[in-house]
């Protein structure tokens, strides 16, 4: 797949395959096109060449609302909550296309993120970074996605929250949701990954299981800081 903003390609021939129920982790140096890759999958930028398939169906260049309907959820790295809406309202917006599911999914999301129950009537903008990340992931989960895209979910979080988020990701995956995430904390992320993709200069450099990538001395030397 080739793609980028306008006609400029940031991604130059990326190839990724992820099976349902798997955790895929994209790592790589700054500017490798990790976030761009995620945005391309979610239809936020032009795919100029190649294709993106979801369950065998081509989905590239479909608008986001149709992707949500097809079972894809996206959590951006920044600005991933509605700050003036309450936590509960944020979650409700996630199920905007499936209003009949709100009640059931709210319970499920509160189950994944118990700290949100207490805060449900508070504006999301008043929450701490880690809680906000929970709201953001919860919002995406409300639509019952089969694939959840996470853009650096632990960026800027304290180690305590970081572990908690990785923990939740595992739990969400165990509940049958496929995960594709971009992470800076490569070691921790690859440890929970079924599949890891090391991206550099808009191409995959290494693709393997998370454990194999962690064990690979070449990957360790060039991308994981030794």
């Amino acid at each position, binding site marked *: 797949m080739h793609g980028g903003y306008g006609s400029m390609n940031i991604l130059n021939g990326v190839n990724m395959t992820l099976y349902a129920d798997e955790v895929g982790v994209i790592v790589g140096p700054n500017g490798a096109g990790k976030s761009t890759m995620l945005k391309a999958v*979610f239809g936020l930028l032009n795919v100029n060449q190649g294709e993106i398939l979801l369950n065998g169906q081509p989905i590239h260049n479909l*608008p*986001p*609302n149709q992707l*949500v*309907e097809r079972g894809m959820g*996206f959590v*951006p790295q920044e*600005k*991933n*909550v*509605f*700050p*003036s*809406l309450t936590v509960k*309202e*944020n979650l*409700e*917006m*996630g199920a*905007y*296309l499936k*209003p009949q599911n709100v009640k059931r999914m709210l319970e499920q999301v509160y189950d994944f993120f118990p700290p949100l129950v207490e805060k449900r009537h508070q504006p999301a903008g008043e929450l701490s970074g880690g809680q906000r990340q929970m709201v953001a992931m919860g*919002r995406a989960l409300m*639509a019952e996605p089969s694939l959840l895209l996470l853009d650096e979910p632990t960026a800027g979080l304290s180690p305590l929250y970081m572990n908690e988020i990785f923990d939740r990701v595992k739990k969400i995956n165990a509940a049958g949701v496929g995960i594709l995430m971009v992470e800076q904390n490569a070691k921790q992320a690859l440890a929970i990954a079924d599949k890891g993709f090391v991206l550099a200069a808009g191409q995959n450099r290494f693709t393997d299981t998370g454990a194999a990538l962690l064990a690979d001395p070449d990957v360790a030397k060039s991308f994981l800081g030794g």
Partner: protein
Amino acid sequence: MNELVFFINNVVIAGSVTGSIYAIGAIGVTLIFSIMRFAHFAHADIMTFGAFMVLLLTTAFPAVGASIGVPTALIMLPLAMLLTAALAVGIDKAFYKPLRAHGVKPIVMVIGSLGVTLMLQGLIRLFSGTGGQSLYVDDRKEIFRLALPFEGVRAPIVITEPQIYLFVITLVAVVALHLFLNRSRLGKAMRAMSDNPELAQASGINTNTIVAVTWVIAGALAAIAGTLLSLDVTFKPDLSFFLLLPIFAAAIVGGVGHPYGAIAGGFVVGFAETLAVFNWNVLLRPFRDSLPTWLELPSNLAFVGTEYKIVVPFFILVAILVWRPTGLFKGKVI
């Protein structure tokens, strides 16, 4: 006591009337800003359009109201709201949507709305003429004089029928808007889009629908404001246009993009205006004997003359922009 009645008539009632109209107008302006991020200058003339629709309908069927006992104009208001909402959506489709599709800067949209306002004004003038016309075509404007049961009070509290309707309708509109924004799925989606349009889209919210809903609400509210203003005074094609500045002042005082702020801002500007032109001499007169003899009370003790009323919102606007650009409630900094 007579002085107090004078104060109630000229400040409390007059201020509430002006404040209500500014508030309803400012809600529309602020909603449009919060969804589309531009200052909609054509809002005042959309108000005029609403009032003009009421005038047309009332002239066409002047006797409808008499049978029920309310002014015909008021019965025609819901229909006019519908027509005005349709106009607002139509204007968006014809003028603003193509601009949005090109991804223009907000200032281009503002200038576009200036064009729309001139066009609307011309069109309305073409059909209505330039003179004033009463919206009370066949009905009589009731004026209520409430005498206070106190000894020595001669002056009654004066309130007119349209003013009572204005207060009631403002209250209903504000409560309805509150319920819509906080309880309904569409209202919450509107707030979500105002907060974060990209994330709203990523949640599957159809932003085109939200834009259309915003125009419907803004248009309907504009029709209410324009009609109630014209009921209180008379219909004139440029009546609402002169309210553009105070309405924007109200929206900015309250914090742009903040509907409750717009309501508060409307009343702040409305009351500031009435208090500024109020003749304070009247209130001071009873204490004349206890004032030092060298202090002669001038017969007109207003802060500004009525003819310079417009400087008040202008001053408030400048003051807010200089000292508190986010407004009373935290709005978006323009």
